């Protein structure tokens, strides 16, 4: 735990933004390990792939575009400190009446949660309680979550997309090829790894019922494989392999798939997202429903992350290109 504070303080102090981005990656990994020690394996899974993986990559791309050094001007630190300390004091004050860490009798552990733990096997039939809560009891939240990430994807598209000129494309890709001739070893190893990563993503996708994992994590891993490919072989090549319009449409399909499950259950006479009615046997219905929505989540997340990354990386290539031309 104390590590976390060290890293956080370091982030405050370090001025090299690249280093900051990397430290935030370490921070993500650390908090993920912390989640594991506190039994939150699913969360750790996600935090590792998001905090240490995708966020860090995005930060790096941004830093690569915006410049590395920070011109540090200390301004209004007093006000900031005041706000921070008031908040902190309030929280410390709040902790005084809290149930202790790990208390079995804390109200949070007595009221709603026991039902999930005791009955989810009978009602849903999935080993991983987190999955059953996520995908069935609180499925609507998860739907919201997919929509949030989709919104972010669209937002990034709205902000960063631009019409590409073909000649730019050609130049950039030739650039990339020359640049990566040298990285033979890395490329070969990655070529071996990428199919494996994709396979692993599928495993995570469908194994979510029994162990940690699920649609979101699988989506991120899948996207990570694609990102790796794009980084090593250049955006131009990756772009040829993966059609952007197609990706966008697929992201939409992912969200719609999720919604459709809900609509289907409505048509079958249940409430929105009530999987019990999807099949004769409620438990089988639950299984089916969870399977499909996890698939929807996976598709949507993977595509959105790809969209986000590609748009960022395109900007880099373009801005670098412009800079090269100026020189």
């Amino acid at each position, binding site marked *: 735990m104390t590590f976390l504070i060290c890293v956080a303080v370091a982030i405050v102090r370090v001025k*090299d933004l690249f280093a900051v981005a990397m430290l935030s990656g370490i921070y993500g990994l650390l908090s993920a390990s912390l989640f594991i020690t506190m039994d939150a394996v699913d969360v750790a899974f996600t935090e590792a792939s998001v905090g240490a993986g995708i966020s860090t990559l995005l930060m790096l791309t941004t830093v690569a575009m915006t410049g590395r*050094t920070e011109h540090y001007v200390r301004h209004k630190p007093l006000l900031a400190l005041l706000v921070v300390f008031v908040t902190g004091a309030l929280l410390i004050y709040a902790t005084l009446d809290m149930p202790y860490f790990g208390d079995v009798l804390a109200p949070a552990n007595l009221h709603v949660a026991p039902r999930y733990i005791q009955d989810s096997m009978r009602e849903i039939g999935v080993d991983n309680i987190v999955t059953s809560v996520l995908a069935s009891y609180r499925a609507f939240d998860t739907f919201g979550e997919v929509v949030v990430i989709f919104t972010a994807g669209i937002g990034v598209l709205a902000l960063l997309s631009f019409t590409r000129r073909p000649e730019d494309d050609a130049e950039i890709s030739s650039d990339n090829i020359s640049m990566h001739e*040298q*990285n033979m*070893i*890395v490329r070969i*190893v990655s070529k*071996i790894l990428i199919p494996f990563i994709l396979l692993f993503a599928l495993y995570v996708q469908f194994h979510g019922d029994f162990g940690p994992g699920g649609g979101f994590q699988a989506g991120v891993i899948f996207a990570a494989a694609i990102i790796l490919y794009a980084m090593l072989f250049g955006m131009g090549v990756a772009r040829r392999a993966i059609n952007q319009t197609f990706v966008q449409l697929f992201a939409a399909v992912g969200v719609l798939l999720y919604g459709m499950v809900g609509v289907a259950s409505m048509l079958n006479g249940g409430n929105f997202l009530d999987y019990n009615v999807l099949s004769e046997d409620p438990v089988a219905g639950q299984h089916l429903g969870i399977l499909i929505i996890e698939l929807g989540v996976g598709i949507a997340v993977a595509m959105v992350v790809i969209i986000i990354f590609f748009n960022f990386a395109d900007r880099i290539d373009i801005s670098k290109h412009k800079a090269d031309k100026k020189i």
Partner: protein
Amino acid sequence: MDIALNISSALCLFLGSFLCLSGGVGIIRFPDFYTRMHAAGVTDTLAASMILIGLMLQNPDAIVILKLVMILLMTLFISPTTSHAMAKAAMNSGLQPLLDKKENKDGVESS
């Protein structure tokens, strides 16, 4: 049988931890980037495999061993690759190895 497994597992774990620690000391104490990388890269690979093998010996479950083997393979693949890539990138960016006694601990961050 059990005892033998346990002992060998403990031995592996011990060796792994020791290598880890020495790598950790190395990464702090060595004078420049390339030597540090050496410390990290070498210990990483061996220590990781030692610890993973140690864990494998502890568990009879097939799927767990399979997963551990996968992790092991991955570390074996990834660790040297990243080391290689890092060294190459560092060379390309103009970071010179510390060959003689010249002091150039800082200021080599090229941008």
